[in-house]
């Protein structure tokens, strides 16, 4: 079973651990085609509503509000950890209907068609089925038609762990990644599995990066 294989080596690291003090914790700026596409796709008007799952940061708040938009901030990884724990039962707890419902209500309880864009970063790769699909379906409902969603997935199939980053917007085409931890992703996503995951959406576009991140732009 996929779940048994993933549970074989449970991560001992908390998703929400602060960055390490060694050089691995230093922010790295790099260009992002996905981020560029995301901001390019926004309608040319002010007062849009953008959902940001990276947790409140001065950089992201300043950038998005300076464009005249409203930002809705939430640290999805932290709420995930609070809902499902940070130990070996993190994946198993996601199957608990009560915990899953609480996670969805605490993170995605919005009226339909509330947002003009969503920056989901890498949070989806830590969700297991069926919660993963429920989350994506909820994102579909709360996004307006023609809006975009940006998500990152680790692209190295054989890697035992994946780096966990804090993502900060530097410019519309540049983001800063600060390594936080190495964690075990719930599953590996290839292009086909991502197309299936986002099958309700209008289109899915992929950008593969040198640091083994698959940047995905999904159009509602």
């Amino acid at each position, binding site marked *: 079973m996929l779940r048994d294989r993933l549970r074989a080596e449970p991560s001992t690291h908390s998703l929400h651990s602060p960055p390490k003090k060694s050089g691995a914790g230093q922010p790295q700026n790099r260009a992002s085609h996905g981020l560029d596409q995301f901001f390019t796709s926004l309608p040319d008007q002010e007062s849009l*509503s953008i959902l940001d799952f990276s947790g*409140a940061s*001065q950089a992201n708040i300043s950038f998005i*509000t300076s464009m005249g938009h*409203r930002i*809705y*901030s*939430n640290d999805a990884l*932290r*709420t995930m950890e609070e809902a499902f724990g940070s130990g070996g039962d993190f994946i198993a707890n996601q199957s608990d209907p009560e915990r899953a419902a609480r996670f969805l209500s605490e993170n995605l309880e919005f009226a339909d068609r509330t947002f003009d864009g969503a920056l989901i970063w890498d949070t989806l790769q830590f969700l297991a089925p069926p919660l993963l699909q429920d989350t994506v379906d909820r994102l579909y409902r709360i996004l307006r038609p023609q809006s975009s969603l940006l998500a990152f997935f680790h692209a190295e199939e054989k890697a035992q762990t994946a780096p966990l980053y804090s993502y900060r917007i530097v410019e519309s085409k540049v983001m800063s990644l600060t390594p936080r931890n190495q964690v075990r992703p719930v599953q590996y996503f290839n292009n086909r599995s991502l197309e299936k995951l986002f099958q309700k959406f209008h289109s899915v576009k992929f950008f593969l990066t040198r640091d083994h991140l698959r940047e995905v732009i999904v159009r509602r």
Partner: protein
Amino acid sequence: MWNKRKEEEYPPKSPAAPPAPASQIKENAPMSTNPAPSHHATESRGPAVIGKSVMIKGQIFSREDLTIDGEIDGSVELHEHRLTVGPNGKLQAGVKAREVVVLGTIHGNVEASDKIDIRKDAKLVGDIKTARIVIEDGAYFKGSIDIVRPEAARTPATAQPKAQPASSTSPNSAATPATAVAGDSR
């Protein structure tokens, strides 16, 4: 004769002499670097403070800067002043102020006409409406942020007295008028 001699040793005090003027007393007294207490001490006392053992359920209105280190359930309004939520402060309340500094916890919507400052280890859950926002790394925030740009025609800020002539001598009370209803103290 003994009595007369006593009087010589202990000359009677002159009848009820008025107390020496303050200036005269000062000349003879040791010098102090502290200024003499003023009749208007309350004007320079600093912001009003709600201490950490105080719990209030209700509405708080203030016409001076306010620091809250206790628990509030209700609403807090200081339209032209600064609210500081101390590290022990826990607000389950809507907040309206000129400036809001958060070191503790707020569950509620916040309107700060000038600025909101969320410090590290602070927690704010609610929607924010403000002209400027500063958030330190390590702060937790969940909610929406609307930046409301200040109007073009602003009157220059004038210094306002921090407190009106005191009718209350309690150092730990909010400025008048207050509709706070004291709850259980902890």
